[in-house]
């Protein structure tokens, strides 16, 4: 019997999963930001911290940072407006996380009847892979995204500090300005998709790559009756949206609220310890959610191009075999590279008894084990061990689709990092010019263009 308890438990599991989804990527992003910026600037980047000699290319630094931020003294200045000052980082973080609840990370997960029977369920249980399936999904994102400005604004105001206040003011002005362009480009996509529910939006983009929202949601055949008008509409909407995401996340080149040169650290200058960490993580969470929404709106969401969920389930064994055997040489190559790294001058310069000498051996072993595991996976696929079970194809689809979203998110966030270390900060008037005098008219025009395109498309289809 389907009880409400089942729904509650499933919802909780999904909540935890989505939270973990975002929070697991944050440290990786921080690491990527540091390492990538270092490479861009011709330096090695973080490479000191290690756990029992394993530095993992600087990943350990992120862990150390977490420990540092947690154990550091939490300084509460006397002059701050305490209530709001405490609330601000929480608002910032929760807004960033809440947005993710409407992003789907897979089409569905069917729990087989054999498992539901454990708790007395009747028949298989179909779980939509989305925390909250709400019909105004996209509007929810806009609403919560707008709320996040409160975190920044409150932090800036309640810090009772000129720098913070200026930072907060800039942030609110900037977010309000770009909210418009963002909303209009989202509206464009609504018109194209004909729905605001993100799970349906994602489902529409299954199949071939030209089904992606980026290409203006073509008709079923992938035909563009107006000769690339859809591309223009979708592409423009994407650029608009993506630029706005930058502005909303306060990333370079739109990080005027923080502007070290003139505002020290902007709105969070008075924060330290875990409270600062919350702001810090909120920024990365914003990046992740922004990328996830972008991926869902424009890049097919969780969909793997040319490989809809049902196809995955149908050809589970083949996919496992190909992936398993395909990964083996890659991992072996990694193992060889890791093993060869022991010849680097760095290891030569180390003292013979230095604990970091075990690093190349460790990673060679690590990649080797992965290679062997994937060999086993390939063998499992060959023997049909995956497809023959009820849970196997479901799990495979879930893993692949979620991974697809993760990869798209990572590409998006990576691009953000890349932009940050390439482009200098805008001047404030440039920022406002861009928002109001370039993007807003462009977005309005795009809405108009989208309207024509949708009518035309319907006319053709009819």
């Amino acid at each position: 019997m389907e009880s409400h308890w089942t729904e509650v438990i499933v919802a909780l599991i999904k909540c935890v999963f989505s939270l973990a989804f975002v929070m697991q990527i944050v440290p990786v992003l921080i690491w990527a930001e540091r390492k990538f910026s270092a490479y861009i600037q011709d330096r090695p980047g973080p490479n000191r911290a290690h756990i029992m000699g394993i530095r993992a290319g600087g990943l350990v630094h992120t862990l150390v940072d977490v420990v540092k931020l947690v154990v550091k003294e939490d300084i509460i200045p006397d002059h701050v407006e305490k209530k709001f000052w405490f609330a601000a980082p929480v608002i910032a973080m929760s807004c960033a996380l809440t947005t993710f609840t409407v992003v789907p990370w897979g089409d569905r997960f069917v729990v087989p009847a054999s498992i539901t029977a454990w708790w007395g369920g009747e028949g298989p249980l179909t779980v939509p892979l989305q925390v909250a399936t709400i019909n105004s999904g996209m509007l929810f994102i806009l609403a919560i995204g707008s709320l996040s400005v409160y975190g920044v604004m409150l932090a800036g105001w309640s810090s009772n500090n000129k720098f913070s206040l200026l930072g907060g003011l800039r942030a609110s002005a900037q977010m309000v300005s770009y909210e418009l362009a963002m909303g209009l480009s989202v509206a464009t996509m609504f018109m194209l998709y004909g729905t605001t529910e993100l799970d349906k939006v994602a489902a529409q983009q299954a199949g071939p790559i030209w089904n992606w929202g980026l290409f203006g949601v073509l008709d079923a055949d992938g035909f563009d009756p107006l000769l690339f008008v859809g591309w223009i509409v979708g592409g423009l909407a994407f650029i608009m949206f993506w630029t706005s995401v930058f502005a909303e996340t306060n990333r370079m080149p739109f990080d005027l609220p923080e502007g070290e040169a003139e505002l020290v650290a902007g709105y969070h200058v008075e924060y330290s310890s875990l409270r600062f960490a919350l702001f810090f993580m909120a920024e990365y969470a914003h990046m992740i959610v922004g990328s996830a929404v972008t991926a869902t709106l424009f890049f097919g969401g969780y969909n793997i191009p040319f490989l809809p969920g049902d196809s995955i389930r149908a050809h589970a064994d083949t996919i496992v075999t190909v992936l398993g055997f395909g990964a083996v040489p890659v991992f072996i190559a990694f193992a060889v590279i890791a093993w060869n790294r022991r010849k680097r001058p760095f290891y030569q310069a180390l003292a013979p008894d230095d604990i970091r000498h075990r690093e190349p051996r460790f990673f060679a072993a690590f990649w080797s084990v992965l290679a062997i595991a994937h060999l086993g996976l390939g063998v499992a696929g060959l023997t049909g061990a995956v497809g023959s079970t009820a849970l196997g194809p479901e799990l495979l689809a879930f893993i692949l689709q979620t991974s697809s979203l993760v990869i798209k998110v990572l590409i998006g966030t990576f691009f953000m990092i890349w932009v940050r270390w390439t482009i200098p900060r805008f001047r404030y008037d440039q920022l406002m010019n861009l928002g109001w005098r370039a993007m807003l008219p462009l977005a309005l025009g795009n809405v108009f263009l989208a309207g024509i395109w949708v009518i035309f498309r319907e006319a053709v289809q009819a």
Partner: protein
Amino acid sequence: MNLPVEQKRTFLERIYLVEIVKGLAITLRHALHNLFKQDFETFEYPDVRKEMPERYKGAHRLTTRPDGRVKCVACMCCAQVCPAKCITIEAGELDDDPIEKYPVEFQIDMLRCIYCGFCVEACPKDAIRMDTGIYEINAFTRQDMIHDKAYMTDLMAGKKPLAESFYRAHQDAAPPGYDLEEDRVLPVDEPRGL
């Protein structure tokens, strides 16, 4: 007054996108190069250390005479010339040496020191040098940042005095009465009447 001239930009430049891509290409090129080549100029300090050039101004040391006493005679020239006023010398008197003045204490407040090297220039006795190549001058307390005579004497105590190496290379340049082993000009026996 020169007013800033607004740059003329083409349309492509004005929509930023192309220029942004150009910039991104540059940074990506660097990133990929470094990812695969890993040939940074950066030293992986402290495991790999840079060999400092000979004339690098590192931590100060006090040179010694062959008998182990400092060469410094507490003339205060360094303290006088020091623009940061970080040198404190307390002079004392020796009974059993023709060079009767010596520093009872010689302190440099490394927190104040600006590493200008004037003290080395000013020293008439070649008693203070900055040739240690030591650039890690740090401590956990302010007190520990005050280098004293004992510390600066022990620092690189084995290094040969400059004069010795110089005069070994240029025997002719040594002043009359210069003793290589003693590294100073010894008094000549005085001819006196009956």
